[in-house]
């Protein structure tokens, strides 16, 4: 998978709880604030990302993953670590 594929898939997962179109979301925006999601939605998104890409984020990392760019970076790092 390429980085651009990761981003499209992450955007789709981010959009799911709100039903909004996440394609126009700026990659560096806090996606919860931008899409009107709450903290549990954010955790749901991250859980979905973990499941979709079969990765696992460190517990202490969870609070820091707030934008599409953050999540894509974390997915890439996790996949590389276990490659």
């Amino acid at each position, binding site marked *: 998978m390429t980085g651009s594929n990761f981003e499209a898939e992450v955007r789709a997962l981010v959009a799911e709880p709100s039903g909004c179109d996440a394609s126009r979301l700026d990659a560096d925006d806090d996606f919860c604030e931008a899409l*009107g999601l*709450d*903290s*549990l939605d954010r*955790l*749901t998104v*991250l*859980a*979905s990302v*973990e*499941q979709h890409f079969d990765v696992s984020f460190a*517990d*202490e990392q*969870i*609070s820091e993953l707030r934008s599409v760019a953050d999540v894509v970076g974390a997915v890439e790092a996790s996949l590389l670590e276990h490659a």
Partner: protein
Amino acid sequence: MMKIGLIAMSGVRVRTKELAELGVTLPQFVDRGRVVASLPSLGLLTVAALTPPDVEVAYREIDTMPVEGALEPFDLVGISSFSAQIDEAYALADRYRAAGVPVVLGGLHVSMMSDEAAEHADAIVLNGAEGAWPRLVEDFRAGRMQRRYAGARNGVFEAPHYVEPRFDLLRGRPYNRITVQTSRGCPLNCEFCAASLRITSRFQQKSVPKVVSEIRSAMEVTDHPFFEFADDNTFLNKKWGKELLRAITPLGLRWFTETDISVADDDELLDLLAESGCRQILIGLESPSARGLDGIDPHNWKRNRCERYLESIDKIQSRGVTVNGCFIVGLDSDTSETFAEIKDFVQRSRLLEVQITVFTPFPGTPLYERLRREGRLLKERFWDRCTLFDVNYVPRNMTVDELEAGVRWLFREIYNEREFNRRKRHYMDIVKERAEGIARPADALVVGA
């Protein structure tokens, strides 16, 4: 046109210095404090709705009032306050009265300490505003406002008393949480409880259509609102509760409420909670032990349930509905071991949120009267310390210093970043299990994790 100013007292201010300093460093404590401080006053929005339509009403928060100098002009001011902010409410009332503006005081504390409140007001409203405020306004207009008005203790959700709160007054304001009340009262009648049961004769429930109408009205005034049901116990009547949940599911809400642990007994109710967008229920667990719960409510209902606490919490949370387990420290049966017992229970139960509060003798409660008779109140008057985090009495099995130190220790153990992250991870695991359709057997609780 006559103009009435309704002023809400908001915010939670811990008085004990060491605890206040600790609290600001702990992420989950800061989170909840911020949420509580941002709730609008449902009581005053109801007062506004009870005001005749030819009277202008302004809703204000205390934080927006000038601390000195000229006050915003009104013909009449109404102030509602809990105990912890009552001295600030009295100070504001005194300022307005000194400026020649009559003041009406109301709210739970005023109902419990009416003689004291009357010294700072031209009129006081006892119990709720329903059945009292319309008469007060007409009397004021006619120049014959009385010193005391008693609101209805029953029938507040039916004609002629019921009104839909003025959520429109919140338009354009930065509230992202809105309160709606579905019931008043609670039959458990715990000794320490200072909630709406103290101003009502019996449990009263609003009809589901009225609740839905209020929610729809509130949704019009704010983007992405999160709802809190301002109830003592929303699901006392589970048949009504299921009707409510089916009615609100299509609205796509996210919401929170308070109820008791018996919701875990009803699988259909739990499924409906999850489907309707319930994010969290707060449950007064109070203590993890039967010893601690003995005598806390007149029928020992909570004590008789505590053996099933772990199983019940797991069952609720497995639906993706988080449980905010609320504990009280400093109960008469508590010892210096209690703090570690609570920490252990929190970790074993994997509660997704935790609220630790100090046993607090709010005025007007059976607890206050008992501790006063026993000579255990630190002071006769301590309302600014009724914060749920400050100690106001002599504990039975430890000193005040030991209780305060134990609270600080428990805060550090429960609300630190590591524990916060563990809770987040547990929620994510539940989400994944639900997505995979994994059923977790009731005996799959992690012991000693």
